[in-house]
């Protein structure tokens, strides 16, 4: 099912990512759909991650973990997070078809990040629901 997002929605999404997450020290944020398409992304300019490959892998990773959750009898896991030495990655589901991926360093605690992600997710949900997204 093909869907479109216009300038207004994409600008609004980028504004949310910028104010709620980027401004608190997250290094790289991207919003993708579960097919692996990149909808929006921001980074601090210092890291040049291959966003398209990350998006494909993130979508696959999230889908794999969701399937595992169902096998063990859970609807879904409430936390998908990979902790690294310097950088960590957090995944958050937005509606049925989107994922918000944040890559952050040691400067921000996971607990605080999850608070901010939850807030950003609610705002992005409203933007997507108002568009012709699936």
């Amino acid at each position, binding site marked *: 099912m093909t869907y479109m997002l216009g300038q207004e929605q994409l600008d609004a999404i980028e504004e949310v990512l910028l104010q709620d997450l980027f401004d608190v020290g997250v290094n790289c944020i991207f919003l993708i759909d579960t097919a692996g398409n990149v909808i929006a992304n921001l980074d601090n300019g210092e890291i040049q991650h291959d966003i398209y490959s990350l998006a494909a892998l993130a979508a696959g990773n999230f889908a794999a973990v969701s399937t595992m959750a169902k096998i063990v009898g859970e609807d879904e896991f409430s*936390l998908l997070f990979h902790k690294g030495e310097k950088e960590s990655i957090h995944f958050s589901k937005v509606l049925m078809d989107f994922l918000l991926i944040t890559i952050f360093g040691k400067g921000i*605690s996971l607990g605080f990040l999850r608070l901010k992600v939850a807030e950003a997710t609610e705002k992005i949900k409203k933007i997507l629901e108002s568009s012709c997204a699936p």
Partner: protein
Amino acid sequence: MALQKDGTVDFGMEADPKDLLGHSNESPDSVEDTGDPEGTPLRELKSIVLSLDWEITDQTMSRFVKEIDRLKDTYRDDTILVSFLGLLDSVGKYIKTHKTRAHPNASKLLNSAYMSLEKVIVSKDITGPERKKILVNQLRSFKRLKEQIALRKAASDRKKELKPSEQISPMAEELRNDLPMQRQGRVPDETKGRLRESDEGRVSPPEGFMSALEEIKQLIQDEFRALRKDLKQWRYDEHGRT
């Protein structure tokens, strides 16, 4: 220690942190976890702090504040520990009140202050001056946090005073300009103009896109015509029909 109505925190300590030790000290980095709080009154607090590291909820924050109160009573005769607990109390209440609006360094300080408290309680051979030194480091971090909170509030107040048309965050503007527009970081010349045209906030109608698809449709139709021709020829060759 009191959380002020304007969001700042009054620690309430009269003495300058320097006076505790008599000389200034190194940067207050977070302390390495050297002890095991099992068997000490810190066990419950540790579990709460670890839980907060993963998830901050109203429930956990309430438990945190309650546990700090309990520990203040337990250690009421030890001024250093009471100071630590006071610091944790202030930061905890600040995070509990402000939640997502809290400064990101607040939860970092909470962790670091807890680790320092644990070291001071659990380490067997720690001397009095060493305990004070650790406390002073945390107080410095706390002071820095207060300054950062005040700066952020001032910036936010200034922003509210500006007229809507003047509210431009230079960093946001710069960041927007630097946002990767394409995979290779290029913005194609022919689309630059079009992007500017739609900057007034209106959604551009997908005219260009529809005409692009029209072109593909035409290509497909031409291909189908050629295919039909081939099929006709094939049928003729196979079955002798025209």
